[in-house]
C-alpha cells in the first residue's frame, strides 16, 4: 500500500511509524525543516518539504494511484483541501483531521462529496469520548464496547486487598456468563487456563454482556461505582466536548479555567456545567470547590507537567479517581507508575483511530489493548468462512491466544462455550494476543 501523510506532528509521526513498520510505502509531507529531519532520521519513509495542498508536490511523489492520504496538519482548512486534491488524483481513501467544532459538526460540509473525506477525525472529540467511556465504568482501566454496545470488554486492575486474589479462574463463579480473555502480568500477556490464579497487580481482560457487567464484575471483587461529580481543570476543547457529553448524562460538571474570556465562551456553549474562573493549581480553590468529594478529577490543560502535578494533588486531597491529559508520549509509562489512574493522549488516540480505519475494512471494529499486547476484532461471519462455521468452537483448532469472546445472534449477545456452533450472520468478537494476531486472518479466509 502507498500512503501519503501530510503533517508530521505527533499524530502523523505515529501513523507513519506504524504503517512503515507494517511494510507499507509511506510518503510524509512536512513544511517544517526541523520536523522533517526528525522523521527522516527515525523512520524508514520518504519525507518531502512543502505544502500538502500543492499539486506539483503531490505529483512529484506520484500521488496518482496512491491508496491512502492522511492529512493531519494543525490547519483544518489545509487538511480538507488536501483531501479534495487527493480526490482529483483518485486516491482511494482519505482521512482529515478537523478540529474546529464548526466544521466537524456541520454534516453538510463533512458529507460533501467534493471534499472527498472518508474519515473526519477530531482528536479532542476522540479524547473526550474516551474519557466519557471510562467514566461509565470508573473501576476499569479501559472499556471497549462491541456489537452495538451489547458486549463489554473491561480491563480491570487487581489492586492489593482485592477479594479475588489467590483464586483460580475456574473457582470464580457468578450468576452470569463471562470470559476472562487474558491477563496482563509483569509486562506480558497470559492466556489463562482454569487453574491460573489471580494475582495482585494483574490486569484482567473481562468480556461479558453489557447489561450483566455490573454483576459480573463482582466475581473479581469489583463493585460498580457511579460517578456523579466530575471536576475538570483547564477549559480546553477536550474539556468542552467532555462536559457536553457528561451534561447529557446528567452528571455534575465543574470546569476550572484560568482565562476569563475563555470561561465566558465555555459558559455560552454549555448549559449546566459550573464554570469557574480561577487557577486550577490553587489548592484553596480546589478545596473550596470540593475536590475532596469529587468522584473524578480530570486535568486537561495544555501543560503536561501541570496536569500530572495537580491531578496527583487532587488525589491526595481526596478525589476518588484521576485522569490526566499527557501529550508527550514518553511520559506515558511513568504516569501510571506515579499513581495517576489513567493518562489520556489525544494524539495517540487519534493515531489509533486512524489506523483502525485504515486497516482492513472487513472488520466492523478493531481495538488495541494495553499498548498493543492484544487486539480485538469484531466481524460478521459469512457462509464462505468455512474454517469458522458448522463446527463446535472447541473443534475449530483455534491456537492458544485466539478466543471467540462473544457472539451476537438474533439481537442477543451470548458468551459462547466450546460447544456453541457459529453460523453465517453471527456477529462475533475475536480476541487475539499480539503473538498470534497474524493467524486470525487464516481463520477468516473465505473459501468458495
Amino acid at each position: 500500500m502507498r500512503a501519503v501523510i501530510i503533517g508530521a506532528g505527533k499524530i502523523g509521526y505515529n501513523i507513519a511509524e506504524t504503517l512503515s513498520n507494517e511494510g507499507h510505502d509511506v510518503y510524509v509531507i512536512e513544511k517544517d525543516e526541523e520536523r522533517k529531519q526528525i522523521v527522516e532520521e527515525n523512520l524508514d519513509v520518504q519525507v518531502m518539504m512543502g505544502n500538502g495542498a500543492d499539486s506539483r508536490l503531490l505529483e512529484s511523489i506520484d500521488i496518482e494511484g496512491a491508496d491512502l492520504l492522511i492529512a493531519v496538519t494543525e490547519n483544518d482548512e489545509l487538511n480538507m483541501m488536501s483531501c479534495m486534491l487527493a480526490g482529483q488524483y483518485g486516491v482511494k481513501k482519505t482521512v482529515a483531521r478537523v478540529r474546529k467544532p464548526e466544521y466537524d459538526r456541520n454534516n453538510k460540509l463533512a458529507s460533501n462529496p467534493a471534499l472527498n473525506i472518508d474519515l473526519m477525525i477530531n482528536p479532542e472529540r476522540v479524547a473526550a469520548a474516551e474519557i466519557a467511556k471510562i467514566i461509565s465504568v470508573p473501576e476499569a482501566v479501559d472499556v471497549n464496547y462491541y456489537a452495538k454496545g451489547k458486549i463489554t470488554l473491561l480491563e480491570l486492575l487487581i489492586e492489593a486487598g482485592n477479594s479475588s486474589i489467590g483464586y483460580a479462574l475456574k473457582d470464580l463463579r457468578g450468576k452470569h456468563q463471562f470470559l476472562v480473555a487474558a491477563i496482563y502480568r509483569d509486562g506480558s500477556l497470559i492466556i489463562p487456563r482454569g487453574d491460573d490464579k489471580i494475582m495482585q497487580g494483574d490486569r484482567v481482560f473481562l468480556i461479558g454482556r453489557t447489561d450483566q457487567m455490573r454483576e459480573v464484575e463482582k466475581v473479581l471483587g469489583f463493585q460498580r461505582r457511579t460517578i456523579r461529580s466530575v471536576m475538570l481543570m483547564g477549559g480546553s476543547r477536550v474539556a468542552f466536548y467532555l462536559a457536553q457529553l457528561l451534561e447529557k448524562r446528567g452528571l455534575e460538571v465543574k470546569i476550572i479555567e484560568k482565562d476569563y474570556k475563555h470561561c465566558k465562551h465555555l459558559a455560552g456553549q454549555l448549559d449546566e456545567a459550573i464554570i469557574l474562573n480561577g487557577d486550577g493549581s490553587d489548592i484553596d480553590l480546589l478545596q473550596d470547590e470540593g475536590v475532596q468529594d469529587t468522584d473524578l478529577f480530570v486535568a486537561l490543560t495544555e501543560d503536561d507537567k501541570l496536569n500530572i502535578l495537580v491531578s496527583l494533588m487532587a488525589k491526595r486531597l481526596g478525589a476518588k479517581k484521576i485522569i490526566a491529559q499527557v501529550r508527550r508520549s514518553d511520559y506515558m509509562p511513568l504516569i501510571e507508575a506515579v499513581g495517576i489512574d489513567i493518562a489520556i493522549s489525544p494524539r495517540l488516540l487519534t493515531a489509533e483511530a486512524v489506523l483502525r480505519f485504515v486497516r482492513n475494512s472487513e472488520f466492523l471494529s478493531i481495538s488495541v489493548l494495553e499498548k498493543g499486547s492484544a487486539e480485538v476484532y469484531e466481524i460478521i461471519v459469512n457462509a464462505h468462512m468455512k474454517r469458522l462455521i458448522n463446527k463446535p468452537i472447541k473443534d475449530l483448532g483455534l491456537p492458544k491466544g485466539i478466543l471467540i469472546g462473544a457472539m451476537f445472534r438474533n439481537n442477543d449477545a451470548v458468551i459462547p462455550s466450546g460447544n456453541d456452533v457459529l453460523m453465517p450472520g453471527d456477529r462475533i468478537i475475536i480476541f487475539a494476543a499480539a503473538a498470534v494476531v497474524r493467524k486470525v486472518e487464516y481463520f477468516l479466509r473465505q473459501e468458495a
Partner: protein
Amino acid sequence: MKKQRKGNAVWHNVGKLLMIVAFSMVFPLMTAAFYRETCGWVFLLMLPVTMGLGWFLVQVFRPAQKEVHLQVRDGAAIVTYGWILAALLGMLPYLLAGTFDNAADAFFEAMSGFATVGASVLDDIEGAPRAILMWRSVTHWLGGMGIIVLFVALLANLGANAMQIFKAEAAGPVKDKLHPKIADSARSLWKLYIFNTMITFLLMLLCGMNVFDAVNHAFSIVATGGFSTRNLSIGSYGSPLLEWVIAFCMYMAGVNYTLLYLTFRNRSLKFFWKSREFKVYTAVMLLAILLITVDILPQYGYDVMTAVRHSAFHVASVLTTTGFVCADYELWVPAAQILLVLLMFSGACAGSTTCGFKIDRHIILVQQARMEVQRFLHPRLVRTLKSSEKNLPEQTLHSVTTFFYLFMVIVLVSTLLLCCMGLDFISALTCALSCLGGVGPALGTLGPIESFSSAPTAAKWLCSALMLIGRLEIYTVLAVFWPAKHRHIWYKKLPVYGDYDE
C-alpha cells in the same frame, strides 16, 4: 440649527403615520355605509381631517436634506408622539358620534384600543352604532402588530434609521430581524398578521358568529386586544365550542411572530419545539389551567368540562393580555383570582402582539436568580444567559432587571395614586397591573363584567398613560420624557462609583 432639522424629521414621520390612521377609518366608514348608520358622517369628516393633518405635518416639516440620521431618541420620539396623536385623533369619532360626552372617556377608549388593552368605559356596547364598534376593533388591529411596523413596512423611507423606530415599538427583550432589510421584515410581519386575522375570522364564522361579529373579534383576538361587540364579551354567545376555539386562537396569538415566520418559511413545526420560550409559555399556560381548574371545581359542582373550559379560556385570555371574559371570575375562590393576577404579571412570548412583562424576560430573570444563588456557593462562577440557544450580552440582563424594577415601581406608584383617587386597594392594584400589562379587565370594582366607566376621571387619564407606557414597553416613553436638560443635576447628586474626574 442641527436640532431643528431633527425635530423636522420627527414630525415629518409622525405626519406619515397619521395618514395610516386616516386610511384605517375606511373600515368604520364602510360599516356605516353598509348598515346605513347616520353616524357615518363622523368618519366621513374625520378621514379627510386626519389625512389633512398628516399631510400638513409631512409638508411643513419636510427635512432639509434627504438623508437624516435619526438617533435612538428621535425614534422614540416619533413612536411616542405618533401614538399619542393617533389616540387623540382616534378619540374624536367617539366624541362626535356622541358615544362619550367627555374627553377622558373617549381618550381612554381610544388608547385602550390602540394599546390593545381592551379595558372599556363603554357601558352599553350593544347600544352603540356598529361603525363605532368597528372603529374600536380597528384601533386594536392597528395597535396589535404596531402602527410603526405598518409604517415601516409601507411608508418609511428611512433606510438604516428604520431600525431605531422599529425597536422603539417592538416588544420583548431581544429584537429579531426576519430579513436583512427592516422594511421587508415589517412587511413579512404584517403579511403573517393579516393571514392570522383571516384564519381567525374564518374560524369565528365556522363557530356560528355573524360576519360583523366575526370581523370584530378576529381583529380583537389577533391583536390580543379584548374589545368585544357584546356587553358580556364572549360569555354572551353561550357556546362552549366558540370558547374553546377563541381560547386556542388567543394562545396562538401569544406566540412569537418570528417563530411563526420560520415555521411558515420552512414548512416545519420543529421551531416550536426548539424554542424555549414557547415551551415555557405552553407549560405556564397548562399549569395555570390545571391549578385554576382544581381551585374552582367545587364551585362548578364538579362539572369538569365547564370548569376546564372556563379556566382555559381565562388563563389564555389573561396570559396573552387579551382580556376576553366568558364568566365572572370574580365569583371564583380567591386562590384562582390571585392566580389570574399573577398571570397578568407574566405576559406571553416576546415578539408577539401581546403586552405585558413577557415570558422571555421571566426566563432571563430566573436564569439570573439561579446564577446568583450558584455564585453564592461558587464565588468564581462564570455563566452567560441564554435565550433559546443564543447567548445574550450582559446588556440585555441589565435592561431586563431595570425593566422589572420600572415595571414594579410604576405599578406600585400607580396603585398609590389610584387609591388616592378613591379606588379600593384590590381594584387599584389590579387596575394598574392590568393597564400597564395590557390585559383589560381587573378585579374589584373594575371586574370582568363591569366597565371602567365608574372610575374617577383622573384615574382614566392615569390608566391611559399606563396603557401607552406598557404598550411601548416603558423605555420608549421614558426616553422621550426624560429631562435631558437637567440630566447633569441627577448625575451630580448621585456620583457614579469610580467617577473621580468630575
